[in-house]
């Protein structure tokens, strides 16, 4: 098919970013490179393009119009078929993957919607529809207005859920100091959404890429966790019992494995990365998302200071504090 409505991650490469968005393009690329990314598929911009898109409506009305219509039958059939390939009623995460998102220099993360633990074809279709509508929410509209020249279009990523025992984010530099020799890991119990949304103070770890030492381990409060409720078929937020709060959520081996994973992804892309990860109840480590780190990478380009010679550098050392006065 020339203009497919869905594409499995395993068939996606970075060159398809224009129709699957940054998130799915990276997930496909990472799966192709052998990284432990859960399987899934992208609902392409071709599907989005078949919607009857409101022309000059305001944001609220545009959302209503998108939510009010049913996608064309061939699009629905393609999504249902792609979902069925993942297995029988497997829980999935449905997330927007805007074409503008995940660009290396413009982080568009989190502006659009995410739906977790979605089960069954009907629920998946419903969540994809909501993601499409989020293209017109206030934040997304404002973001596009402030970032002129972004390609229009909207794709949706549907990814198999990991029943996470512990999850979080990591950076291939220390986001606080900018140190590029560190892997910084934030971890908390349950699904990583609590860490991403800032609902918990996670445990945090700093690992040296060079010496492999765990330079810092800080216990976070980890007051709540987001877990799947099998009976209700959705996620619930519940309190973490005091005993588990007071200990680290990751073992040393797990910290090292995550740091190694981050290092490999950074090498794969040749630049600093910002990753989401999870460790399942089966103890396997999964990579859920990776995108280029933007803040420090930009700062470092601007603040590089190089002395003309070692002698000049030494002279500057002897003068350092005096010059700052």
């Amino acid at each position: 098919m020339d203009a497919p409505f869905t594409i499995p991650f395993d068939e996606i490469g970075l060159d398809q970013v224009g129709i699957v968005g940054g998130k799915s393009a990276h997930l496909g690329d990472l799966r192709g490179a052998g990284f432990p990314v859960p399987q899934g598929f992208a609902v392409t911009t071709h599907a989005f393009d078949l919607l009857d898109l409101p022309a000059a409506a305001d944001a609220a009305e545009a959302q209503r119009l998108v939510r009010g219509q049913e996608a064309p039958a061939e699009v629905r059939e393609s999504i249902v078929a792609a979902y069925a390939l993942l297995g029988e009623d497997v829980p999935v995460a449905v997330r927007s993957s805007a074409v503008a998102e995940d660009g290396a220099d413009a982080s568009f993360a989190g502006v659009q919607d995410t739906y977790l633990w979605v089960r069954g074809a009907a629920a998946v279709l419903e969540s994809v529809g909501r993601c499409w509508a989020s293209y017109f929410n206030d934040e997304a509209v404002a973001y596009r207005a402030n970032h002129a020249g972004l390609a229009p279009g909207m794709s949706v990523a549907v990814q198999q859920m990991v029943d996470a025992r512990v999850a979080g984010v990591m950076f291939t530099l220390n986001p606080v100091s900018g140190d590029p020799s560190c892997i910084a890991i934030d971890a908390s119990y349950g699904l990583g959404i609590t860490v991403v949304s800032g609902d918990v103070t996670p445990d945090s770890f700093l690992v040296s890429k060079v010496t492999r030492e765990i330079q810092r381990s800080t216990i976070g409060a980890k007051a709540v966790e987001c877990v799947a409720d099998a009976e209700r078929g959705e996620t619930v937020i519940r309190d973490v019992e005091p005993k588990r709060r007071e200990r680290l959520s990751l073992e040393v081996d797990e910290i090292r494995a995550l740091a190694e994973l981050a290092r490999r992804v950074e090498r794969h892309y040749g630049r600093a990365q910002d990753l989401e990860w999870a460790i399942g109840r089966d103890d396997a480590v999964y990579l859920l998302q990776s995108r280029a780190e933007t803040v420090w990478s930009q700062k470092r380009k601007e603040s590089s200071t190089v002395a003309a010679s070692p002698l000049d550098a030494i002279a500057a050392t002897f003068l350092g504090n005096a010059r700052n006065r």
Partner: protein
Amino acid sequence: MTEVHPVAGFASPFDVPTPAGAEGWEEMYPYYLLFDPERREQEDKRFWFYNGMHFPEPMPAFDMITAESCYLSIGRYQGRVFAIPTVLGIEHRVVNGYVYITSNEVTDPAQIEKRLETFLPRIGFYYENWDTLVDRWQSEVDQRIDELGALEIPRLPEIEDEDEAIHDHKLGPNYRLMAAYDRTLQLYNELNQLHFELLLLAYGAYLTFFEFCGKAFPDMGMQTMTQMIGGDDTTMFRPDDELKELARAAIDKGVDSAFVDGRNHEEIVSALKQTDGGRAWLEDLESRKHPWFFMSTGDGFYHHHRAWVDDLRLPFAAITGYIGQLYEGGTLARPQEQIVAERNRISSEYAELLPSDEERTQFEQMVGLCRHVFPHAEGHKFFIEHWGTALFFNKMREIGGVFAEQGFFGSADDVFYLNIHEVHEALSDVGLAWSGGAPGRGTVYWPPRIAKRKKILAKLGEWTPPAALGSVPDVINDPTVQLLWGVTAERLRAWAGGGDGTVSGYAASPGVAEGNARVVRTIDEIGDVKAGEVLVCSVTAPSWGPVFPKIAAAVSDIGGMMSHAAIVAREYGLPAVVGTGNATSAIKTGDRVRVDGNTGAVTIL
């Protein structure tokens, strides 16, 4: 370095109480080293910190020369030779027998700019001609060591020798004794001039590299920075290597059974004398002593830290330990190739992480320069602090022997309870008494004073000096102060805010270990350290090396990035926290402690 504002001060140096029984300690020291009430206002505004790293014990009167000689040299090179734009020299004072120092900084921007014009070409010359200058340095040091070792100390005979007095026509042996004393002091002072000639520039290179690393990799630990510099062979390893050779030789000659744990060195020597193999081993020992046993049991700043050559306890204990390790299958080899390979891996991986080729080039140049100066920065200690200083104190013992012969002192070592100026006076006295033919006043003047000073020093030894006195400065520019003592304005604020029993310092050597604390204040207590204990001390010296294989971790009050404790601990792969300011006062022997060499935290459990 971040600029901080004074938030707290320390006690005034004028308000430090004298411990009971130590009254009159001031009499031991020259007037110019005492805090002067006439200048109280200015002195209180300055910041004084206890240099427990080099002077961890109260100073016997004569031993103050080690501080005086070093500070004169540091100040001369920093302030007057290299004209480091922002600093002049270091001043020192004595409080209750302990050495406190402060550095004089240049703050006038115009003066800084002017000094820069002299500074840049001069240090440029040194770095560009480093190898040639190291050779010149070595030959000048060798000359002085040779002269000091060969220096003749005249006695005061009952009847002078006919040849000397009449035919060779040598004049007054008392004057020749004075000249020999002056020459002894002069040679020691010249060795200390050489001490800092190249060292300050080596530290400047280190500091520049550390600052570069700190900017490019803010989370890089100090141990990683120093690990990238160290690893090459230095003269300081040689004495320990000789002990390892002697351990192997004892096994080869089949005489190792003489080295029984718990036997002292005299018992071991007499056992060895019984056999041919043992006698051959003792000959081997003699051949290795010169010069490698001119290793002080301390850091080379106290007369009673005898060199191995004069006190075989430490080398024999170490040889016994090494024989044990050989039997347990150890090779005693320092894994130098591995250390160098790992150091190279680390530095090249950090280089790769730098964002530009320019930064990579600078990083590599700085690492290269630091490695180039490292052998001198470490190796100088053997020649100055150990060999030269041991010869100096031994020469003074000979002079003390003359006083003892003339009834001034009970023993030759009593000379160390007179300061350098009092020795001059006593030499006049002893010369006059000898020529006059009746006992000098010194025979009744000195013995009670020496006895009193010994008691005072014993009392002062039980007292714990505060880490700092005076006012906390805004910033500390002096590179020597930052690097060697780890004193930065931030660190001082932590010290000033301390006193709640928590102990923290620089993470100097990675790893975490727990054990019972052993607080060691002087080298004489080092024998009390038991296997698995955590060494807690004011400072450690490299010649304490043999105790390191035994201990679980090391903690010191004072010490910076390149302090001896940090280097030795890394060499032995032990967790270490240095520069805590208060470990020896907050921790008691027997306390269970956890030392975290990754974070710098020491927890009393």
